[in-house]
C-alpha cells in the first residue's frame, strides 16, 4: 500500500513542471526549518557565473525581436548544409504535457506558417514525455527525408545517442530547450537558464523586504536540474543578503497543498516577509493564502503566466516575474531556415531571458487571454493571434 501510495503520488505529480525530469538521482538537499542548508548537488559554479554574466550582456540582433537575438554569439559556418528549398522540416518534441509546452508549440506552428513559401512540410512527432518513444521517433524521422531535424529532448543523457545518430546522417540537427551531452548539433538554442531565473527572483525578494526578514521558499519537486539550478542560485543570493529562510517546502505544483503550507507558516511565524518560488504555477495559490488569512501579501515572485500577472496587477502586489520564455520555440524554425540557406548561426544560441517588473507589467497583462497562457510568447505578431492561443 505504501509503495502504491508513493508511486501514485509520483505519477500524479510527474507532470507538474515545465522543465526536464532528468533521471538524475539527486536527493533533496534543502534543509527544512531555518537556513538554506548545503548547496544542491546540481550546482556547477562555472555555469552559475556564466549565466549571471549573461544577465547583464547586451544582445545582438533585431531590436524588439528577442527570439532572433543572441547573447555573446559565437558564429558557426553552415555552408555545407546549403540546399535549394522548399524544405521539409521535422520536429521531435519531448512532449506537450504542460501549459508551457502547449503555448510554445502553438507559437512554433505559427512561426512555420509565416514561412509557408519556404517550408513545404512540417512534421511534428510528440514523444509524450517518454524517452523510449522519443528515441524511436528520431529514428523514424531519419528515414523520412527531412531537410532539417529539430529536437527538444525529453532528458539529456538518454537522448544523447539518438541525437548523435541523427547528426551522423548528415542532416542539420537543431536542439532547443533542454540540452544533450554532445556538440554534434549545428546549434543549441535556449535562454539564459535556471541560475538566472532563481537569482533574479531571490535578489528582488531580499531587496524588497526588511533586512533579516523571514522568507518561505516554495519549490515544485527536488531532483529536476532546471529547478535545482533555480534554487541553487537563490540560495547564494539569500545567504549573501543575510535573509532568514524559515522554510523550504515542496508543493508538487499543487495549489491546495501550497495554500496549506503557506497557511501553516503564517500561523507558525505570524508574518512571512517574502516568498520565493522556483516556478510560477502555484504563485496565485500562495497569494490567496495571505489574502484568506487577512495578511498583506509580502514581496513574491511568479512567472509570466497570465493568472499571476493579472493577480499582480489587480492586487498591486510587490512582485517580479522572471521568465523562461516560450518565444524560444520560434527560434529553431528561424535557425533551420538560416542553416539551409548556408547562413552563419550562433552556437550556442543564447536567447535573452527578460524579466517582467512593475514597470513593464502592463505590456504583458492581457485580460482576454486564458489564465495559463504565457505572456512572454513573442507571439502577438504571428498569424492567428490571439485565437490560436486560446
Amino acid at each position, binding site marked *: 500500500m505504501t509503495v502504491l501510495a508513493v508511486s501514485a503520488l509520483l505519477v500524479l*505529480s510527474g507532470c507538474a513542471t515545465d522543465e526536464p525530469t532528468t533521471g538524475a538521482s539527486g536527493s533533496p538537499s534543502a534543509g*527544512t526549518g531555518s537556513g538554506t542548508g548545503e548547496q544542491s548537488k546540481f550546482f556547477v559554479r562555472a555555469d552559475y557565473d556564466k549565466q549571471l554574466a549573461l544577465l547583464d550582456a547586451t544582445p545582438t540582433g533585431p531590436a524588439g525581436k528577442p527570439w532572433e537575438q543572441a547573447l555573446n554569439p559565437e558564429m558557426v559556418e553552415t555552408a555545407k548544409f546549403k540546399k535549394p528549398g522548399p524544405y521539409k522540416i521535422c520536429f521531435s518534441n519531448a512532449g506537450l504535457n504542460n501549459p508551457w*509546452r502547449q503555448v510554445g508549440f502553438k507559437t512554433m506552428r505559427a512561426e512555420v506558417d509565416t514561412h509557408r513559401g519556404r517550408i513545404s512540410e512540417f512534421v511534428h512527432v510528440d514523444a509524450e514525455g517518454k524517452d523510449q518513444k522519443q528515441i524511436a521517433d528520431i529514428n523514424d524521422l531519419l528515414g523520412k527525408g527531412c531537410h532539417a531535424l529539430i529536437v527538444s529532448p525529453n532528458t539529456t543523457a538518454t537522448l544523447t545517442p539518438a541525437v548523435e545518430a541523427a547528426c551522423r546522417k548528415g542532416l542539420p540537427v537543431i536542439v532547443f530547450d533542454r540540452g544533450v551531452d554532445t556538440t554534434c548539433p549545428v546549434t543549441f538554442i535556449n535562454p539564459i537558464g535556471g541560475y538566472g531565473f532563481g537569482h533574479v527572483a531571490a535578489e528582488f525578494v531580499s531587496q524588497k523586504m526588511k533586512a533579516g526578514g523571514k522568507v518561505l521558499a516554495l519549490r515544485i519537486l527536488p531532483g529536476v536540474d532546471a529547478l535545482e539550478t533555480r534554487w541553487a542560485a537563490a540560495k547564494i543570493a539569500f545567504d549573501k543578503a543575510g535573509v532568514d529562510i524559515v522554510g523550504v517546502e*515542496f508543493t508538487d505544483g499543487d495549489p491546495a497543498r*501550497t495554500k496549506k503550507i503557506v497557511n*501553516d507558516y503564517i500561523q507558525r511565524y505570524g508574518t512571512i516577509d517574502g516568498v520565493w518560488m522556483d516556478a510560477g504555477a502555484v504563485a496565485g495559490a500562495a497569494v490567496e493564502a495571505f489574502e484568506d488569512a487577512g495578511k498583506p501579501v509580502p514581496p513574491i515572485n511568479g512567472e509570466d503566466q497570465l493568472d499571476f500577472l493579472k493577480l499582480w496587477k489587480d492586487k498591486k502586489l510587490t512582485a517580479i516575474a522572471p521568465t523562461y520564455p516560450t518565444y524560444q520555440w520560434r527560434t529553431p524554425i528561424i535557425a533551420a531556415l538560416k542553416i539551409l540557406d548556408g547562413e552563419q548561426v550562433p552556437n550556442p544560441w543564447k536567447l535573452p531571458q527578460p524579466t517582467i517588473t512593475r514597470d513593464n507589467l502592463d505590456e504583458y497583462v492581457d485580460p482576454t487571454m*486564458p489564465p495559463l497562457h504565457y505572456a512572454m510568447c513573442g507571439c502577438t505578431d504571428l498569424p492567428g493571434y490571439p485565437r490560436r492561443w486560446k
Partner: protein
Amino acid sequence: MRIARPPRLLTFRSGGLAPILVILAVLLILLTARQPDFLSPPSLMSFLGRSAPVVLLAAGQYFVIVSGELDLSVGSLVTAQVVIAARLIDGDPSAGRPVAVLLLAFGIAVGLVNGLVTTLLRVPSFITTLGMFLILVGAVYLWSDGAPKGGLSEEFRRLGRSAFEDLPVLGRIPYALVVLLAAAAAALVLTRSDFGRTLVAVGGNPRTAELSGVRVWRAKTMAFVLSSVAATLAAVLIGGYSGVSFQAGAGLEFGAITAAVLGGVALGGGRGSVVGAMLGALTLETLFTLMNFYGVSGALRPTVQGAIILLAVAAASFRLPSR
C-alpha cells in the same frame, strides 16, 4: 449486531471511538504546546475549513470499507471533477449551478460503474477502482490536452474559499465547515438507518447477509455511489479552496483510506463507525500540521500514511480474536 449502549463510546472495544479520541487529544496537546494559539477560533476555523474535503472523503470511504470493499478512484475523481468544472464554467458566474448538477450526475455515474463492476462482474474492488483511477486520469489528460483549460468563477469558488464573517466568539465560520457538518449529519443518519446496518452486515459476512435476504450487490453499489458523491462534494470544496489544477485530488484516496483505518474502520469490512473515519481524517490532518510545526519535511507524508495503514491493520488483526 449489537444494540448501541451509552457507555460504548468509552470502551476500547474494537471499532470504538476511544482510541482515535485519545490519539487526537494527544496530538492537540503536542500542537498547542508548540503553537499555543492553534486552538484560538480563527486558526481552528481555518484548519477545520481546509480539512473539510479530506473528512468528507473519509466519510465516503467508510461506507465502502465497512461493506468490505475499497475505493481507490476518489482522488482522480476529485481531479476530474475540478478540471471538468473549470472547463465548463470558464469564468462564467451563471454556469455554477448547472455545472454542479452535472458534476453530481457524473459522480453518481462513476460510483455506479465502480459498484456494478465490483458486484455483478465480481472484479475485486481494488482492481475496479484502480482501473477507474487510471481511466479518469487518462481521460482528463486527453480531454484537456495535458493542461487544464478555462477557470472557475469566483461564485463557484465561494463555497470552498469564503466564510460567514464577523460572528461573535468564533469570528468566521468557513462555508466548507458548514457543508461538512451537514454532510456528517446526513452520513450519521444513514449509518443509523436500515441501510447502514445492512452495509455493516454485508461487510462482516456477505454470505450470511445474502442468505438472510439482503441484496448484497445493491448495498455495495450504494456504498460506492456514496463515496463518489462525497468525492464530488470534496471536489467542489477543493476547487473553491485552491482553484483548478491537475494536482487537485492527487493522493487523496490514500488520505481517505488512512483516515478511515486510523479511525478504527476495519479493512475487510464489518466494523467501524463513520464518526471514527471522520475523526481519523481530522487526526491525520492534525498530525500533518504538527509535523509542519515541528519542522518535519512534508516529503515524509506518504511514509507516515503508509506506516499508519500498516500499524492500524496489524493492531486490528491482533485484537480480532477477542471480538
